[in-house]
């Protein structure tokens, strides 16, 4: 089977000052297979990918492509070898159009003049092939929602005539329908002999699409060539974490019938985004919003939070109406929002972890405006321990953390705050299995303490498992509201898809 081998990386070491991110990683990929890369947050997956695409230079180790040892001195070198990537952090140029982003770096051109019609047409063809012909090729990418941007990244990877495509958590921002679509594309690619390296924290996806699995732990390969379908889940988790984790949702507590309504949303409307949204959340209750990407869930949360101004409708907290379009009003009333896009909406990338965590609760650690750093760090430390943020220590700049660990930092910020109402938008995006169960437990505990929680997640399982009541959204409208126990995944998906069939 050696002639089948496309890529072999062996003994890859990559050291950042003070951190050994990769410590002897081996990976081999065959033509036409989907090779899954598993590992906890911070295990080194993204770093390995960046070495493979020439974005990082390894300190040692060899890379063999098609039987030849290569040195990938720059992204261009990797591209020329037919290695394309969808990076974990969206790497698009917000002000360029969709088409321009798809063909960034290799735009159709003649004598240096870009052939815009050709670019647009080709981009449209690619998008259509991805099942997203509706994404306007001429729109600035920055104006697209996260999922749309992810599609553009995919189109870009496909635009290169690649023999190996690396996908770093492409499904993190996708809903079930989109994931199915993605898999269709992947199958199409592999049938043509293209190899795919697939990274995800959702084990069921691995089962569905993967052929073989390599597991990374603390920057080293701990298992390779595992069969993606046969290896037991418990075994994978053990390999990744070194312990066994029960991947289940914590038990719901009964909400006392006397629990007061804390958040009351009435007839909220923003034309073009969502209309006539009404729901109420009682103290201790978790309400989940399910729906496809683009169904307007994030917009609802942001509107409740005052980050967007509602056209009509009202938001009341503890019986007091909030002034629309004013974040301050919401914050004062005890509303917190853990936003969807951690990088642009939540994180201060150059700041230390603990400063990111305490930024919304600064007053608590200050006397007369002077901050007590010790107290801040202690509080942050406690949370990062609970969430297993790696590397440990609260003084690293957030920028240097892995994606999943950054997400944990965002969450920690809002867990620290004593909110009356907590709005969680995709709280587990990119978070590994172990930390995920920690987060579920924490969210449950908060609810048990009387916080009203609204949860948005693209993983229907998560919404159903965690929420007490579910609101199913389709195209900006609530199509179903009811207790979570009375509805199952298939019913939700049916509800959600109904419209798209029309």
């Amino acid at each position, binding site marked *: 089977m050696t002639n089948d081998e496309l890529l072999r990386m062996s003994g890859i070491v990559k050291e950042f000052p003070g951190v050994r991110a990769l410590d002897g990683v081996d990976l081999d990929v065959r033509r036409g297979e989907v090779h899954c890369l598993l590992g906890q947050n911070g295990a080194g997956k993204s770093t390995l990918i960046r070495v493979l*695409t020439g974005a990082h230079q390894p300190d040692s180790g060899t890379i063999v492509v098609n039987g030849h040892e290569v040195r990938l001195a720059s992204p261009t070198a990797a591209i020329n070898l037919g290695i394309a990537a969808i990076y974990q952090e969206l790497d698009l140029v917000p002000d*360029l159009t969709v*088409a321009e982003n798809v063909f960034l*770096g290799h735009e159709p051109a003649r004598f*240096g003049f*870009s052939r*815009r019609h050709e670019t647009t047409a080709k981009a449209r063809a690619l998008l259509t092939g991805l099942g997203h012909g509706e994404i306007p090729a*001429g*729109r600035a990418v920055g104006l697209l929602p996260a999922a749309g941007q992810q599609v553009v990244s995919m189109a870009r990877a496909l635009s290169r005539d690649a023999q190996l495509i690396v996908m770093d958590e492409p499904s993190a921002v996708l809903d079930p329908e989109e994931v199915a679509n993605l898999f269709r594309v992947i199958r199409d690619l592999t049938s043509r002999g293209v190899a795919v390296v697939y990274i995800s924290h959702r084990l069921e996806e691995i089962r569905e699409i993967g052929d073989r699995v390599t597991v990374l732990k603390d920057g080293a390969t701990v298992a390779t060539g595992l069969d993606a379908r046969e290896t037991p889940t418990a075994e994978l988790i053990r390999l990744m974490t070194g312990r066994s984790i029960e991947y289940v949702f914590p038990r719901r507590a009964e909400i006392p019938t006397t629990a007061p309504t804390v958040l009351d949303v009435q007839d909220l409307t923003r034309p073009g985004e969502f209309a006539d949204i009404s729901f109420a959340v009682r103290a201790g209750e978790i309400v989940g919003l399910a729906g496809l990407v683009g169904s307007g869930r994030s917009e609802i949360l942001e509107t409740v939070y005052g980050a967007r101004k509602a056209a009509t409708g009202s938001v009341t907290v503890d019986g007091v109406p909030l002034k629309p379009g004013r974040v301050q009003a919401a914050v004062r009333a005890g509303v917190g929002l853990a936003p969807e896009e951690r990088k642009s909406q939540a994180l201060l990338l150059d700041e230390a972890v603990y400063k990111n965590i305490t930024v919304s609760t600064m007053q608590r650690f200050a006397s007369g405006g002077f901050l007590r750093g010790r107290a801040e760090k202690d509080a942050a430390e406690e949370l990062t321990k609970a969430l297993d943020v790696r590397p440990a220590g609260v003084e690293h700049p957030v920028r240097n953390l892995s994606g999943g660990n950054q997400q944990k930092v965002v969450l920690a910020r809002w867990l620290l705050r004593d909110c009356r109402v907590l709005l969680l938008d995709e709280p587990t995006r990119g978070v590994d299995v172990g930390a995920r169960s920690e987060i579920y437990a924490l969210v449950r505990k908060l609810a048990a303490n009387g916080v009203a929680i609204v949860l948005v997640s693209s993983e229907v399982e998560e919404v159903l498992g965690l929420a007490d009541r579910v609101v199913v959204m389709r195209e900006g409208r609530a199509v179903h509201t009811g207790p979570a126990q009375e509805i199952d995944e298939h019913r939700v998906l049916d509800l959600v898809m109904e419209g798209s069939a029309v």
Partner: protein
Amino acid sequence: MSEDVARSEPSATPESGTASTQATTRQPGAAPGRASGVAGLLRTGMGRNLGLVVALVLLCLVGVITAGDTFATGANVLTILRLAAVIGVVSIGMTFVITGGGIDLSVGAMVALASVWATTLATQQMAADFHWILMVSTALLVGAACGLVNGLLIAYGKVVPFIATLAMLAAARGLAEIISDRKTQIITVNSFGDFFGGSFLGVPVLVWMFVIVAALGWVLLNRTTFGRRTFAVGGNAEAARLAGIKVQRHTVALYVLAGLCCGIAAVMLMARTTTGSSTHGQLYELDAIAAVVIGGTLLSGGRGTIVGTVFGVLIFTTLNNVFTLNNLSISAQSVAKGLIIVIAVLLQQRLAARATTP
């Protein structure tokens, strides 16, 4: 006109402090129906620059009302254009640098150095023997060389653009003074003045030069891969690098381009003044950046417009012209200028926002 549509949001979004407060409220709005053809270009182009157009028109109205007989004459229009030409060319180069995420404080000094170098006795002697083209190429070369140094320092030396070009500002002006011995060097090569001082189709050669540079700049920025890369480098340098764009080399190219523009501006200034001098181009950095920014190019990079820059330049020069015609007290001119700049920007914002909201 897809990329016009793409960039037709309110272009004067503050890029600082309160900037991204707008990010989430970005209108997702249905893509403004693929406008095609000239009408589309006009519509979207106008939409984006509506505020600038209105500001310029208002300014002209003021000019016509307060000094109608002189303001609205062909000669006066040419006067405004001639004034706009020199700083205009510099501003085109600056647009590229800023769009690419940089800044160039040394433009004025480069103009001075290029003008001095191109008018030394030696150069003029050679030019007299051979052709004035020698002086022109000297100026262009000097400009490009300074730009190259800027670019290398920034791209490979990793010196922040502000500091690198500030250093170049000091060094180039100092060098200009040393070369010229702080004397104004008079151009004696008559053919040079004859050519650049002349007119073509009733329009001064200088104005033609500005028009050509602006047109080339527009094409380069909006219709070539070079332009795409400039947006990419300025908008997200890391993404550009990962996409295989040679970010460092491109950065160098941008500064060389800016330097080249300064060389051209130096030639124009030499033609206008018949001199080369180390005092030429004073405060051009501020003027050019102001024109670029008021035109809607984002100081933080990634978004730039040549048309906006041209409007920016025209607004500032027309302002000066109207002031001169109206004999406002000099100090009052300063105050009025401040007010008008703010009003123009506010206008531009409101109108641009309205034009792009369905």
